[in-house]
């Protein structure tokens, strides 16, 4: 594991290295170098299994974090690559040529976060939602409760309690 991290550190200047467990390491890479890093890891370091790809919305910093988790089935190692892209006009280079399933992930991210992957197949087709008119729902500024109350005719009489206060009241 150390050799691999050293190798990609030298080549791609990854930073912020966290050894979460013995066999999984999180690294941060710059946006421009990410796809090159993933290609290098697939072709030369044996990280052949693509585990997942997802985004995290850091709305305070105005950034989306994209996480790619790659797995080396022979050495039984995982490396998770974080990359940060701007929240405004979020676009990222597509990686669909490396693995077939990546285009599905990118379709989901486009729909749920509004991150664009130009060139990815069927990326503009709707994937999960149908006829969605609002901002992409997984963004932090989308308020799901308010949306549901406004749209779906909530049945009157539902009470919501703050769990800790409710417990305090009932336990005493």
């Amino acid at each position, binding site marked *: 594991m150390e050799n691999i991290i050293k190798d990609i550190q030298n080549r791609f200047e990854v930073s912020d290295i966290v050894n979460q467990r013995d066999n999984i390491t999180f690294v941060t890479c710059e946006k421009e170098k990410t796809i090159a890093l993933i290609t290098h890891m697939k072709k030369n370091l044996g990280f052949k299994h693509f585990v997942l790809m997802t985004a995290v919305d850091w709305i305070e910093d105005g950034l989306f974090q994209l996480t790619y988790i790659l797995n080396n089935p022979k050495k039984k190692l995982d490396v998770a690559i974080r990359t940060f892209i701007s929240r405004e006009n979020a676009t990222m280079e597509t990686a669909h040529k490396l693995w077939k399933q990546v285009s599905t992930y990118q379709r989901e991210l486009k729909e749920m976060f509004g991150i664009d992957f130009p060139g990815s197949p069927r990326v503009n087709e709707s994937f999960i939602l*149908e*006829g969605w008119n609002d901002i992409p*729902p997984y963004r932090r500024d989308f308020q*799901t*409760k308010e949306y*549901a109350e406004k*749209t779906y*005719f*909530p*049945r009157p009489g539902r009470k919501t309690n703050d769990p800790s206060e409710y417990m305090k009241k009932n336990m005493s």
Partner: protein
Amino acid sequence: MTNENKNHDKFLHEENKIREVEAPDGSIIKVDPLNDYFLTDRPVVREPKNKVVEKFLNWARAESLWVLGFGTGCGSIEIPPLVTPRFDAYRFGVQMRPTPRQSNVFIISGYLAVKTLKRVIRTYEQMQGPKYVLALGSCTINGGMYWDSYNTINRLDHFIPVDVYVAGCMPRPEALLAGFAKLKERIKAGRAEGANEYAEKFDWYKANQKKIINDWNMPDYNW
């Protein structure tokens, strides 16, 4: 009935747009698929002609409930146990059918995403009357676990008429059997008039449905 869904034009699919087609003899025909390809009559209220005969018919209907095999949510995992030897719903005259045209009971098994709701409405309208809806799980009553979700509906009875609710998350097969017993009682008493209710309050149901289904893309009544 004209296609009034002007707001839904944005989501209208290519094959349903009004277009011009060339006939074999060279003349040009204007085609409006939503009006030309589908029967656009509204549903009508059926009044029983003879009360004694109706009572007999209700008894017959109650004893043969043909359920549509459409698992709309996670409750559908309890349907196989229901129709296999352990709980054996067949002994109560309940059996599964593969198509809406042959069935008269629709089990809404749990939460309904908006995308499924559209298919559910379509399926419900295709079923033969008199038809009954058995709503399964808390999610159909008030949203249940997903009360604050942006993609699941909270109340089913705003979109299609419901005869029996079976509460729980998820209800056991025994609860489902009890739900069927209750449904039979209702049918025998002549109170399961979901299809007529749907026809009476058709405009209200349609308005509710259209409020949340943006991608309407189908005729108003899918008979």
